[in-house]
């Protein structure tokens, strides 16, 4: 019995030249199919033909995908237009404050950023709780994205507030209740991000971070009510809960324009950072699969 030393050559020697109606792959099947073996079983093992159809993008996008892309574009455009409107509202539309003067206009960027930071940390707490309940990675990505954006917004709140404090109080920093609790909030969520970075994308790291995210939210109401509970230098709330607004109408409108604009920007950033987290998880899974293949 002759044993073929080079199976590939033996197969080539046997293979018939392709003729109309006879697929080259069908001929290859005949070479390797053993008696009684279903061709489909062998066919499943063959690598796909070397054409570009496998890698070609889909010819048509699903409607959902198309609308999602348009929605993202609209969100980004809305954020950009909102930024311009905010500048107009803060510098042109809003009147000059009698006591503080022009430096009061910092308020129109400082306050919306602070509110959105609160929103971000609220979403971190909710997403963390949902992650602990459902153990779905997507909630972890959502919490991480919100924590990152919230930390950035809190940083900008501290900086703009400090600049306003220097202009109005003559000091960059005072150990006021509101400022101190905001600084604590900043440390909590920067610590959350450092913890995520240290533990990597593991289930245990996600669980620990979720607990931190939930507990860290405790500081948010403390921060909000600090101007009411303690004697502080920081101005009291301009829109106190359950009370009349403490602002004239034009200032309130300018504040609302700024709030809507920053909310659109927040939404746009959240979408981008969430996608980033999703893709980073995909990379980790691909690496794990490559290690398995090796």
């Amino acid at each position, binding site marked *: 019995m002759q044993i073929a030393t080079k199976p590939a050559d033996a197969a080539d020697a046997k293979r018939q030249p392709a003729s109309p109606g006879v697929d080259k792959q069908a001929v290859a099947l005949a070479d*390797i199919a053993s008696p009684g073996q279903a061709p489909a079983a062998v066919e*499943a093992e063959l690598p796909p033909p070397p054409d570009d159809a496998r890698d070609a993008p889909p010819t048509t996008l699903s409607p959902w995908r198309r609308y999602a892309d348009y929605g993202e574009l609209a969100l980004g455009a809305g954020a950009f237009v909102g930024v311009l409107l905010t500048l107009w509202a803060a510098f042109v539309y809003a009147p000059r404050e009698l006591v503080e003067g022009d430096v009061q206009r910092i308020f129109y960027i400082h306050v919306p950023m602070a509110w959105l930071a609160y929103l971000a940390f609220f979403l971190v707490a909710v997403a963390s709780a949902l992650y602990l309940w459902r153990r779905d990675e997507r909630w972890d990505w959502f919490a991480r994205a919100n924590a990152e954006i919230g930390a950035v917004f809190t940083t900008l709140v501290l900086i703009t507030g400090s600049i306003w404090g220097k202009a109005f109080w003559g000091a960059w920093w005072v150990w006021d209740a509101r400022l101190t609790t905001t600084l604590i909030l900043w440390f909590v969520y920067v610590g959350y991000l450092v913890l995520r970075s240290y533990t990597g994308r593991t289930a245990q790291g996600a669980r620990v971070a979720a607990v931190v995210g939930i507990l860290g939210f405790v500081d948010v109401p403390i921060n909000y009510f600090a101007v009411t509970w303690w004697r502080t230098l920081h101005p009291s709330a301009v829109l106190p809960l359950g009370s009349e607004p403490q602002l004239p109408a034009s200032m309130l409108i300018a504040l609302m324009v700024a709030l809507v604009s920053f909310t659109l920007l927040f939404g746009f950033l959240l979408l981008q950072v969430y996608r980033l987290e999703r893709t980073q998880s995909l990379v980790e*899974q691909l690496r794990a699969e490559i290690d398995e293949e090796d």
Partner: protein
Amino acid sequence: MNGYLIAAYAVLWVGLLAYVGWVALRVRGVKSEAETLRDLLDDLRDRATRARVAKRAQVTKLAAQAAPQPTPQAGKAGGQSAQGANAPGSFKPTKHGNSKPAARRK
């Protein structure tokens, strides 16, 4: 216009723009890394499949030496195997607590 006011707005917008730019760079980097890893994984799987098929061909040829030659089956179109793993949209997040990675569509 008050210098502190200008400084505050400048810090804010520069800071936000810098953050948006940083996020965009990270997104681009991770996307290209994912593409590269996907191609590498497909290549490894192709090689493993070809090696498996070649080995099986060698074994079946030895077994078929004594058996009568089967007639070629004409006209059966060679089907394409399913789309490669990790095709766009096929990534599914995992539920933490499972030791195996998420099953992929092949």
